[in-house]
């Protein structure tokens, strides 16, 4: 199969970016975290902002994100990433501080930090991975877990009576005047990845232009937590997660998308 006539530098179409470290990511096979890391790193490379990028890693599956981004990084306490980012971006206004957070980190324990950073319009980029579950701790219910979804702490399926409703925090944040760009994307197909990468690029460009908070939700899979193969998890995500968390821009250039 291997054709040495094609495999030449001048024919290169795609290669892994050097803004990712050489470390093998600890994520489960097929996890959207890896894909999202990759495209965030690609955007940093393409914009030439590696020396100004500061990654704030959360607590959760992506707690070790700082091992994978070849940029200066800080590991935050659970949910506090937007507080760190607020301070850093204010102290280094020309830097590119971004947080990378999961649904438990951002939409449960870090709700206050998230809402207030967005409401102040901090000039930061927030990358929010929503897979409706706590992956790292073993698949417990998250604020974004769907009704009926079985998790380790909702073993008979989430019910409204016991657990209330899935939190659409992205729509909520879009209501705040401080957010300039709010979008929800996914990374399960090549087309979706390209779109999400454009969204992430837009977010960092907004930051460069000091527009306020840019918030990119990536609806993602958790094949281990959902107990499915990666391709199956992606199908399930399209059929179920996308219903509650529809893909698309929610707020662009400070205006809600009609």
């Amino acid at each position, binding site marked *: 199969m291997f054709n040495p006539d094609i495999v030449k530098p001048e024919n290169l179409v795609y290669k892994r970016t050097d803004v990712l470290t050489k470390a093998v990511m600890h994520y489960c096979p097929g996890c959207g975290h890896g894909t999202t890391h990759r495209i965030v790193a690609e955007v940093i490379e393409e914009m030439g902002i590696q020396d100004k990028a500061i990654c704030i890693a959360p607590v959760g599956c992506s707690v070790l994100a700082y091992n994978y981004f070849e940029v200066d990084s800080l590991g935050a306490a659970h949910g506090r990433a937007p507080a760190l980012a607020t301070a850093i971006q204010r102290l280094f206004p020309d830097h590119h501080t971004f947080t990378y957070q999961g649904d438990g980190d951002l939409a449960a324990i870090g709700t206050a930090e998230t809402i207030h950073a967005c409401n102040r319009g901090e000039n930061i980029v927030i990358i929010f991975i929503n897979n409706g579950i706590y992956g790292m701790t073993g698949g417990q219910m998250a604020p974004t877990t769907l009704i009926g979804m079985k998790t380790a702490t909702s073993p008979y399926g989430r019910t409204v009576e016991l657990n209330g409703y899935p939190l659409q925090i992205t729509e909520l944040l879009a209501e705040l005047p401080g957010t300039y760009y709010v979008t929800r994307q996914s990374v399960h197909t090549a087309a979706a990845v390209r779109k999400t990468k454009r969204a992430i690029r837009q977010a960092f460009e907004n930051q460069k232009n000091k527009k306020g908070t840019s918030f990119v939700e990536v609806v993602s899979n958790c094949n281990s937590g959902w107990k499915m*193969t990666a391709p199956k998890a992606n199908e399930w995500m399209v059929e179920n997660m996308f219903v509650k968390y529809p893909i698309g821009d929610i707020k662009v250039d400070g205006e809600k998308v009609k």
Partner: protein
Amino acid sequence: MAIKGEVVIDKERCKGCGVCVVACPNKVLALAKNVNGKGYNYSEAVIDDCIGCASCAMVCPDGVITVYKTKL
């Protein structure tokens, strides 16, 4: 003239998740019967129809796929 692509897969870093297999429009990729050092059935090209679209590389969470393309 035909567009001809080629993928180079770092099979030791591949976790065999199979999302690239689904993503390939020409069904070039499949998971190998053999496993790599970590015990994963890694992804490999099984037919010669790659067009270098890089869809596989786009969806690969671990960035193990390098893609080349030329016109023959």
